[in-house]
């Protein structure tokens, strides 16, 4: 079974916890026995290299290295493993060392690589090979040596395209877990930062790291996360998205309940607020629990701007969210149910524009909504410049033609355009997607019941938001349940020097974040 290693134990991915399909037997002593055991694996994987060699130039001890081509770092392999072992190792044959001492001695004198460990279990050894380690077996020594010299090509560190910041750091996560962790570690130097690794996915065996700050985080939440990670029983983890879907509280909800980010600076901010981060190998994203609804309205550069600017932008985002969901619905309600609520001049000009359109307002809206959704989709999938062209052609030319052909009124084009702009003004991808969906039921309800349906739709949506929880923490806090102290970093973004408390909505051990008392003992020791 997988388990998360305790603190102080191994922090490397444990190779041997999942023993399904591989006989969990102790390694034999003899060299040929080991080779015989490993033969089926070598035969099936042509990229698995078995490189026999002798220790020391005098051929005193036979050994064999197992590794995958291009997964381990060739340069390190040659420089720090093969070369010293073949050329310079010695001293172990003299004296009366037993085998354990011998292997220790070889490792300590002749291998100049940082990360290594030993094992006497066959299953652990095989898993280590397939996890991409270099494994050495020796004649007449039972234990195998596992060396981590991962190499190969990784993407360089770039600015994440989905979370661009005009000011502030440009660093973004990449697909390599260890490098991602190092990015966090480099900027968050407290010894209280805890990083636990585990493995998820029976066949992909993806390393997953759980990060939190020991003296801030609520340990009950950490336990829950470990629980949920351990309960995951799937073949493959392809990205952080798979993990999110397996551990979120309410899968039957259009709202994203787990906040993700590709930015190390954001990750650190979240950790400091008492959240727990999960990073998955192979994905440039960290996911954070517990997450609140308001987080999807916070962008990392809010905190770099002046407080007034930050607060203003926050307000605009909430407004944009409202508009993005309800503007088409409001249009239908006001046009087809209660035009008397519009200013008289506006009502007249709207009616004139709609006079020659053959469809009812609902159909008109749905057609335009469908078109814009398709434009967005096509723009997303096509490569850069082609996507832009498609957007321009479809958006501008189609819209203009539709108006000329009297298939749509100019008003609905404006309405849909504003809605779309507002949708993409939201700072987080998952919320944008949720908004795109949520618009539709509201349009339909409003088309049936007018403003009554509009208010019913919003009531149901608010109720749903109130009922959501992320890791048992109310998702709609600080609005409901009201934690009004937290409004300073949700509805507003007040001055940083006034944010002395961590958010109340996230359970933490240590409420005080900065300033004033100082008795609580801050970070570190």
């Amino acid at each position, binding site marked *: 079974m997988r388990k998360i290693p305790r603190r102080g134990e191994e922090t490397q991915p444990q190779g041997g916890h999942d023993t399904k399909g591989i006989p969990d037997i102790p390694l034999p002593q003899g060299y040929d026995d080991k080779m015989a055991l490993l033969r089926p694996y070598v035969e099936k994987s042509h990229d698995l290299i078995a490189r026999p060699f002798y220790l020391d130039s005098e051929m005193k001890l036979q050994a064999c290295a197992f590794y995958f081509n291009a997964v381990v770092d060739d340069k390190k392999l040659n420089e720090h493993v093969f070369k010293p072992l073949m050329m310079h190792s010695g001293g172990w044959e003299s004296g009366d060392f037993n085998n354990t001492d011998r292997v220790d001695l070889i490792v300590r004198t002749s291998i100049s690589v940082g990360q290594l460990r030993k094992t006497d279990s066959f299953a652990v050894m095989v898993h280590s090979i397939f996890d991409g380690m270099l494994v050495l077996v020796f004649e007449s020594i039972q234990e195998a040596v596992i060396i981590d010299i991962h190499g190969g090509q990784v993407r360089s560190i770039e600015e994440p395209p989905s979370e661009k910041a005009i000011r502030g750091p440009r660093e973004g996560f990449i697909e390599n877990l260890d490098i991602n962790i190092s990015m966090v570690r480099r900027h968050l130097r407290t010894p209280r930062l805890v990083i636990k690794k585990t493995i998820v996915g029976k066949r992909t065996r993806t390393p997953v790291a759980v990060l939190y700050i020991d003296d801030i985080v609520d340990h009950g939440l950490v336990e829950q996360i470990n629980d949920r990670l351990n309960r995951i029983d799937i073949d493959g983890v392809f990205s952080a998205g798979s993990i999110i879907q397996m551990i979120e509280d309410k899968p039957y909800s259009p709202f994203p309940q787990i906040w993700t980010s590709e930015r190390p600076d954001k990750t650190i901010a979240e950790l400091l607020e008492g959240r727990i981060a999960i990073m998955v190998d192979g994905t440039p994203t960290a996911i954070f629990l517990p997450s609140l609804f308001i987080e999807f309205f916070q962008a990392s550069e809010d905190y770099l701007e002046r407080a007034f600017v930050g607060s203003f932008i926050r307000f605009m985002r909430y407004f944009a969210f409202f508009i993005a969901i309800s503007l088409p619905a409001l249009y239908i309600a006001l046009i087809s149910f209660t035009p008397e609520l519009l200013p008289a001049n506006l009502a007249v000009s709207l009616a004139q524009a709609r006079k020659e359109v053959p469809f009812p307002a609902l159909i008109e809206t749905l057609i335009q909504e469908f078109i814009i959704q398709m434009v967005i989709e096509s723009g997303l999938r096509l490569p850069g410049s082609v996507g832009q062209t498609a957007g321009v052609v479809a958006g501008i030319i189609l819209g203009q033609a539709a108006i000329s052909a009297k298939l749509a009124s100019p008003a609905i084009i404006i309405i849909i355009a504003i809605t779309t702009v507002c949708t993409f003004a939201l700072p987080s991808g998952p919320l944008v997607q949720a908004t795109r969906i949520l618009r539709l039921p509201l349009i339909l309800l409003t088309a049936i019941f007018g403003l009554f349906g509009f208010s019913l739709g*919003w009531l*149901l949506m608010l109720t749903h938001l109130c009922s959501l929880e992320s890791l048992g923490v109310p998702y709609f806090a600080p609005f409901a*349940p009201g934690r009004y102290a937290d409004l300073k970093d949700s509805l507003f973004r007040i001055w940083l020097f006034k944010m002395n408390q961590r958010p109340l909505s996230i359970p933490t051990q240590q409420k005080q974040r900065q300033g004033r008392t100082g008795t609580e003992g801050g970070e570190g020791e």
Partner: protein
Amino acid sequence: MNNTDTITSKQLIFIIIGAQIGIGIFSLPRLVSAEAHQDAWLAVLLGALVPLLILIIIERLGRRMPESSFVGMNHLLFGRWLGSAMVFLFVVYAVFFQSTVVRLFTEITIAFLLPRTPAPVVTLMVVLGAVYIINKGARVVARVNEVLFWIILPLLFIVMAPLVNADYTEILPVGEAGVKAVAQGVLSSTNAYAGMEVLLVFYFLVKSKGEIIKAGILGLGWTTLAYLIVTLVCLLVWGSETIQVINWPMLTLLKTIKFPVLERPELFLLAVWMGVGIRPTMNMGFAAAYSLSEVLHVERDKYFHRVVIFIAVLIYILALLPPNLIVAFKWAQYAGYTSLLAGLLYPLLMLVIAVIRGKEAPSG
């Protein structure tokens, strides 16, 4: 007690406001000024004393038995059978009262928003909305109350806009209507003030019992303030005679205001329309469903929704029974009087018995 069923005392404030302020606020100025004339605002102010009394009685009662729920209290005080019967009666009251609320809400909706939609459909949507909320349990009901309070709050300021046309002589001379007329007015306001009795059920769910009286007074204070503002504005703008010919003075009041660009602030009210109308139903409905499920020993984790749907069906049928608006108003009036029975006499009876049998009831 299930851990997910506790609420905070702060949320109790919003629950009490939500249970009290519903569509009653739309017709309150007319009902009260019909009796108390220009002193209607005085009657509204005095009317708050009734729920205050209810609050104190229930708080005293709850303090004697903080460990037992509403059903538990009844069983302790009246015995198993009679106690269950009393709870049933309370549920019947809640269902009846809410059916009149839903009916009037439907009527107003049809009159102002959906003139061509059949009443059963509108009623169905209201009831379904309530079912969805109640099903989610006490916490969500409390949170929804809280959110709705803040969303609806701006309405209180919008209502004050017509004061530009106010004529303060409309409420002068103060006290001319006489004691009897004002007392009649207080009686007419009972329907609007009904709702404090949800505390009978919610008392047990509140975490910090010591704060309940404070929360209750705060909630009642907001309700009174809202009613007072609406009544005063209507009186000052129209005078008590004109109000009599307007079915829903507050709504009509909003129609008289015209802002530049936005044109009619009514739009805001209509956008939060469901939120205004559904609050009493969801609170009382929850109280009823919660109590009923306990009396019937229904497993709340699994089958609570069946009880909720049962209650909802009853409310739905009862709401559609009155053949026309006049009868519906009559029913609402009776419901207001029964609220005195269920809200004032019933807890008082419980308190008296609790005091008499003081030694038997665990003191906590």
